[in-house]
């Protein structure tokens, strides 16, 4: 009897945490396979943004920046890559809030699995999803005439920074999903992503914003990633005038690491407190 009920323990704690994380991530990826509309929904925002900002407003923004519309679009696309990473927060938050409400999280908490994997699986799924989204966006961008000028190394480094940013936002979404009262609330607060995504060096260069907005926009973690990726892609950029803009590459690594270092332990503490 006891040989059947005792889980056979082979391998270390870290090995198991990794396996558990992958099993949980696979669950979320299977969701996407069964409900592809969610992925399409996430992709709709940047695709529409390319059409709207790139072509409808593009010429006018180009005039404001004193460049042709095509060059504005080259400036715009790295901004939209990062913006897509930010919009992912919505899906993450809703999915975690649904798991809290639906009882799947409780089931996992009652299992002899690694506690951090319960949440890290969601983050891993988000990262894999980000790679898929970015591949599609790169292809679309190429279709719209966008290109990287500094070779494969630069592209890989830029994609790495974008995925890192998404991982950080994933942990923000996980923490929020554990804090909100339910998936409906998560949907209501979704509009809050807009200032995060747009009060940044994404669509409009910060020096065209009023002074009081330019400062938070420059310090927005998104801005660092966008400026750094523009550099790595060799795309049109506006010379940085702030300290944080000049150190974009360093900050594009530091911001996400700092966000994860804060949100991950808070989310774990919240998960433990769910049962009080």
């Amino acid at each position, binding site marked *: *009897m006891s040989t*059947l*009920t*005792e*889980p*056979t*323990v082979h391998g270390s704690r870290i090995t*198991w945490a990794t*396996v*558990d994380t992958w*099993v*949980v991530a*696979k*669950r979320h990826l*299977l*969701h996407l396979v*069964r*409900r592809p509309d969610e992925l399409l929904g996430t992709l709709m925002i940047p695709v529409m943004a390319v059409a709207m900002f790139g072509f409808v407003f593009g010429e006018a923004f180009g005039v404001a920046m004193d460049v042709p519309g095509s060059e504005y679009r080259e400036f715009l696309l790295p901004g939209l890559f990062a913006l897509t990473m930010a919009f992912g927060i919505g899906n993450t938050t809703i999915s975690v809030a649904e798991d809290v409400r*639906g*009882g*799947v999280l*409780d*089931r*996992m*908490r*009652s*299992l*002899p*699995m690694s506690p951090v994997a319960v949440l890290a699986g969601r983050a891993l799924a988000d990262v894999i999803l980000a790679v898929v989204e970015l591949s599609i966006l790169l292809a679309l961008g190429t279709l719209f005439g966008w290109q990287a000028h500094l070779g494969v190394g630069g592209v890989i480094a830029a994609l790495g920074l974008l995925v890192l940013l998404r991982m950080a936002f994933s942990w923000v979404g996980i923490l929020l999903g554990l804090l909100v009262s339910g998936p409906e609330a998560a949907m209501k607060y979704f509009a809050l992503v807009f200032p995060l995504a747009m009060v940044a060096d994404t669509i409009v260069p910060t020096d065209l914003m009023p002074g009081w907005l330019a400062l938070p926009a420059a310090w927005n973690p998104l801005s660092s990633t966008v400026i750094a990726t523009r550099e790595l892609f060799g795309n049109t950029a506006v010379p940085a005038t702030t300290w944080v803009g000049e150190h974009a590459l360093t900050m594009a690594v530091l911001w996400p690491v700092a966000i994860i270092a804060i949100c991950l332990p808070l989310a774990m503490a919240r998960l433990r407190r769910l*049962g*009080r």
Partner: protein
Amino acid sequence: MITDEPAIWTQGLRKSYPGRGAALDGIDLAVPAGTVHGLLGPNGAGKTTTVRILATLASFDSGQAWVAGRNVARDRAGVRARIGIAGQYAAVDGVLSGRQNLEMFARLHRMRAREARARADELLERFDLVEAASRPVRGYSGGMRRRLDLAVSLIRSPRVLFLDEPTTGLDPRSRIEVWDAVRELADSGTTVLLTTQYLEEADRLCSRITMVDRGRVVAEGTPAELKSSVGGRDLDEAFLLITEGA
């Protein structure tokens, strides 16, 4: 399978929520191994809180709790490796298929991929879900969903199974199916702690019943003892008399 050591044992279990007062006000339980024990009481009596504490999903303020020989407060991992939980709060994934659910939870129970697949096959067969195995759970009937829930909770052949209102919201036929499954489990040596609002359910399934009301134990005994203690004809009457007297 019945041994001297109770499979579930609590003494003076207390828990209060800030602003809402005591949810549990000293619960004592002793459930012998291999039996079906009922936790019976009205809504808000503390049944679900008790189960959540014993299943390591919630903390408690004072008292002692042991499950399958493990201290609930100190050895959560040990308890988790030996229990199963099913019922209204520990859910299955609605988007995944029945098979995907079983394989995922089996993997999270630390089974290897092949082992997990074999276990899923076995449980799908046992709970009559083979035909529906690859359909999303969302499209299952209430009874099928509850059977899958039960199958998931039995992946590791737990020593102690917690069933939180396992038949709430089920039609009579599905209810009987779940009852049959519970009886089968008890016959194979699993200890079952079952919470229910249905007296008939407790009467039919449980060898002993603990009646709780407002976080306290108000009566304990076999269904027959509880009935005779108040001279009532059925458990319904006994329950009303006991809770009113408390």
